[in-house]
């Protein structure tokens, strides 16, 4: 891309001596720097007017076992003003895996660096709170290092445990205040991980002064199930079911993102009809996701009836997904180089029929909620955070749009066929929970509009790329032709082999930017398969959002963040 050249030359000009080399592979601008200069360069990236990388999307690491230096830290940046991206890489040796922390510049780096510390054992100089985030303190070693065996377990209880596990009392590092009003003692309460409001995978430790939250600490990681390790141990196509289980309430979107990242690695593009089918599947998933979010918010504010209306509407959306691929939740629909099946017969009519009913149900639920003064009072003006602060936390998606920032990747960097479609991107003004709710509600209706357009515009033709290196040949040919049989055999046993290189590709998932960072070493298995998931970054500001508010405000705030355990804990 031409503007990548300009971008890279600006960076080379600003800090020439810190940059080792730059490259531009498949449209991804990459800068490799000296690790000791990280903080300085990062400051330039953030503050320079022409660069303005205000969003730190991801921090991760790649373990090049056997090379020197061994660990390569990878940072992904995005500029909401200029809409450009940058990858920054720095290598640190195994003997001293230390690098400066970016928390002083982006507060959102906090959890990302904790995760890198947890998974790879990289130490971040100047990090305020370098604890494990996914695993427990008793865990020895760093599981994503290439020399950590995938199946080496360290259970706390049960078979194979040391039998010494003792639950620790809940702690809040960096307490904001230690006394309540008039010097009263604070009450420490923990919500979760098994608590109705925390969806089973988060623990929120609170210090309460009466009902007011004085200190809060959000602990995630109770659903960390080794997404990256599992993906790295299988072929490229074997990772697709794991992506289903990232954001299980909109599985097809996660499939689409992953498959498109792999296709970017291969440098292929899916035929037009395939792109339409992907958009249709993805948007139906988005509808289901938003319905769940809206319903769950109602449920946890004790409005059980609208929840069930939303649930029934989601059921209807799932009927469509069921018609597409035969599964309801974990669809495993998209394939590298296409989709698993074309649209079924009569799909357009089914869509029409179900959308009508979904809109009716949503209107009912909306009426019960938005016209209810109690619901409005619970949502309005609660947990407001400024757009700048949200961006510093790395928040994307409906949460950021509710604060008035126009960032929708379907618009900002149109992928698939989104540039040919007519849809609106709803923006909020206040950035409170009500705005977040309304943004989701409007997006849901826009998604229905998108699907209806797609069904009208969809051209005939194949849905898969015609590339024997990627897609399995049709069954009829496998049984009758020797070449196709060999091809099938090779594809299944060795997997498609992309050229060596690395790519980052992001789509707008239901919760925000869902990006995949893939590193290929030329074999059939990904050397590194990293998912930049929106829930992880979106959950991070929760503690700050609820501080100083009442206990009950956690509930709508947490629900509007829409933390999905699989996506947050990977």
């Amino acid at each position, binding site marked *: 891309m031409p503007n990548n050249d300009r971008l890279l030359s600006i960076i080379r000009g600003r800090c020439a001596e810190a940059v080792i080399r730059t490259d531009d592979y498949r449209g991804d601008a990459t800068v490799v720097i000296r690790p000791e200069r990280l903080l300085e360069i990062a400051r330039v990236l953030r503050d320079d007017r022409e660069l303005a990388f205000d969003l730190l999307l991801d921090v991760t690491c790649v373990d090049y076992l056997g090379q020197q230096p061994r660990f390569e830290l990878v940072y992904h940046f995005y500029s909401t003003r200029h809409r450009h991206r940058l990858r920054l890489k720095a290598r640190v040796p195994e003997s001293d895996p230390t690098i400066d922390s970016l928390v002083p510049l982006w507060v959102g780096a906090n959890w990302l660096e904790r995760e890198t510390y947890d998974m790879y054992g990289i130490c971040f100089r100047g990090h305020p709170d370098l604890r494990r985030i996914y695993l427990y303190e008793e865990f020895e070693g760093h*599981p994503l290092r290439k020399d950590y065996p995938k199946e080496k377990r360290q259970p706390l209880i049960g078979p194979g445990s040391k039998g010494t596990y003792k639950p620790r009392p809940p702690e809040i590092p960096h307490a904001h205040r230690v006394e309540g009003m008039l010097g009263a003692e604070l009450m420490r309460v923990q919500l979760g991980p098994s608590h109705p409001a925390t969806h089973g995978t988060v623990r929120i430790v609170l210090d309460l002064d009466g009902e007011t939250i004085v200190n809060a600490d959000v602990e995630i990681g109770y659903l960390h199930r080794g997404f990256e390790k599992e993906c790295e141990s299988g072929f490229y196509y074997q990772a697709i079911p794991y992506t289903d289980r990232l954001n299980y309430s909109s599985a097809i979107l996660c499939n689409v993102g992953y498959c498109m990242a792999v296709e970017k690695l291969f440098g292929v593009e899916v035929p037009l009809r395939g792109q339409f089918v992907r958009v249709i599947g993805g948007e139906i998933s988005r509808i289901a996701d938003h319905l769940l979010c809206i319903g769950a918010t109602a449920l946890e504010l004790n409005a059980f009836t609208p929840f069930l209306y939303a649930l029934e509407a989601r059921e209807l959306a799932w009927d469509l997904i069921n018609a597409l691929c035969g599964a309801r939740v974990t669809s495993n629909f998209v394939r590298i180089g296409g989709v698993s099946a074309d649209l079924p017969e009569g799909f357009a009519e089914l869509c029409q029929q179900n959308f009508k009913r979904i809109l009716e149900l949503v209107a009912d639920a909306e009426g019960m909620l938005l016209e209810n003064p109690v619901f409005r009072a619970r949502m309005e003006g609660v947990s407001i955070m400024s757009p700048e602060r949200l961006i510093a936390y790395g928040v994307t998606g409906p949460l950021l749009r509710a604060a008035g920032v126009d960032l929708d990747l379907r618009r900002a960097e149109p992928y698939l066929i989104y540039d040919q479609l007519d849809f609106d991107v709803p923006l909020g003004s206040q950035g409170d929970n009500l705005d977040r709710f309304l943004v989701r509600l409007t997006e849901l209706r826009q998604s229905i509009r998108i699907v209806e357009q797609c069904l009208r515009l969809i051209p005939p033709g194949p849905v898969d790329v015609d590339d024997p290196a990627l897609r399995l040949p049709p069954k009829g040919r496998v049984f009758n032709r020797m070449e196709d049989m060999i091809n099938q055999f090779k594809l299944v046993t060795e997997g498609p082999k992309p050229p060596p290189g690395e790519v980052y590709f992001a789509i707008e998932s239901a919760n925000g930017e869902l990006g995949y960072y893939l590193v290929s070493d030329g074999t059939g298995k990904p050397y590194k398969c990293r998912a930049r998931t929106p829930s992880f970054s979106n959950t991070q500001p929760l503690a700050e959002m609820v501080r100083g508010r009442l206990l009950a405000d956690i509930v709508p705030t947490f629900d509007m963040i829409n933390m999905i355990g699989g996506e947050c804990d990977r």
Partner: protein
Amino acid sequence: MEMVTKAPGSVAGGFLARLRAATGQPLADAEAFGESFLLTKLADAVQWARKYSFFPYPFVTACCGMEYMSTAGPRFDIDRFGAALPRFTPRQADLLMVVGTITHRIAPILRRVWEQMAEPKWVVSFGACTSSGGPYNNYAVVQGIDTIIPVHLYIPGCPPRPEAVLDGLIKLQERVQRERGGQRIPERHGSGRPL
């Protein structure tokens, strides 16, 4: 005695006719008039009540939770079987539904919740992850919750469809009815030995 689960809507002859038939029939033919409980022992009556009054504790962690919600939703409506009211405090729950992947980190919490539940209690392993680890076989995931707590019912699927959940629930109800006089059917550990 094996209870016959009667198809819905097969109430023939009305209540009084059934009552008359019941009093005229010997005990052995109890199956002939469905789930009559007056003729069985008190213990059976208690088990009957228990099986229709499962208050589930949904230990929901992951994807399976989506289908758990659907099961409670209007279309599948688990309330028909009397298992509607989820209690989020283990003290008031009868049925621990372990829904979704259990990692090593959350395992102690699961066990604690199970310990806190009041007797009699049953455990349902909902989905592949809880039954065996499912698609996850790595450093983080428990390979089946039956290595931590006893399980009465495994519902397969990743995630199981609501139909499968309801089928599982009916099977559990049949099993609870057989546990007569408070005698619990001994649990089997994952490795085959009783807990």
